[in-house]
């Protein structure tokens, strides 16, 4: 009985796998593409053009096209702004480099502050050191106090 159930489940999964695979690919593309009229991710949009784009993606997937080729076709039709993230080439490369540059700059600033703070605190330690003259006076005063 158990063996039979397992066999049935395996067959059901095997049959559903292609559909599940294609659905997730469709959603992956919809997560990487923008609706040109409402400027939302395609997966969130229900505008007429978004519905049409969704239909186009399904057709292209059914025709066996790769995700990259479908996105390329969408860029051909709607321009590079249809992609949710800009291409890592040409002017779009700036969008990738600027945040990375910003992070590096922020790390450099933090490092510089940390160094300056450490230098200052060690300088403060130097000034806090008690001079021999002061020690001598302190000892004299303590002796006088004891007497």
């Amino acid at each position, binding site marked *: 009985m158990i063996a039979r159930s397992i066999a049935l489940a395996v067959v059901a999964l095997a049959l559903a796998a292609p559909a599940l695979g294609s659905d997730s690919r469709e959603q992956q593309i919809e997560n990487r593409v923008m609706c040109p009229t409402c400027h939302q991710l395609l997966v969130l949009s229900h505008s*007429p*053009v978004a519905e049409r784009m969704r239909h186009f993606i399904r057709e292209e997937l059914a025709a066996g096209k790769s995700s990259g080729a479908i996105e390329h076709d969408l860029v051909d*039709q*709607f321009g590079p702004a249809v992609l949710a993230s800009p291409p890592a080439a040409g002017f779009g490369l700036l969008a990738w480099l600027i945040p990375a*540059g910003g992070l590096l*700059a922020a790390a450099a600033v933090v490092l510089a502050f940390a160094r300056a703070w450490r230098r200052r605190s060690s300088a403060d330690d130097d000034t806090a050191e008690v001079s021999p003259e002061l020690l001598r006076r302190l000892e004299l005063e303590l002796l006088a106090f004891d007497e």
Partner: protein
Amino acid sequence: MRMRSAGRVAAIALVAGLFLLLVVHMATAQRGAAVAAAVAAGKQPVAPDFALGRIGHSGTLKLSSLRGRVVVLNFWASWCRACKDEARTIEAAAERWRGRGVVFVGVDSQDFTSDARAFTRRFGLTYTSVHDGPGSVMTRYGVTGMPETWTVNRAGRLVDHIAGVTDGPRLDSAIERARRA
């Protein structure tokens, strides 16, 4: 010391560059709205020029190449229901004004070219339509919803703007005004 000042200059340049990009982006978006506002105020701003690929034919059409003729620019998309309602009105006007120094140009925006071709066939559009897939020309004209129709006079200046579906008499009066202006 020199390193520190170089870093400071680089940081200032980066911030200035980002600020400039933001300003350019905002200015482009507002320029379109300003064009519509100017026409509504009775002014005649220069029609933003463009060169776009023709739908169903090879080659591009440059707006400034039509200087000397009145141009009716109709922004549409195949997925726009109101554009379907309007298509036959625009085609009828194009036929009415043919050979009288008036050129009709359809600007198919944010649309698939294949759908645009099917749309022109379905509604029997005989005038030239061009493809503005990214909608950049649409933005420069401040188009906020489709359909919208602009009329350009012989000097290449915008004289009339119709937001939404138009009808024959309204279109004819816009063309007459452009012929006089």
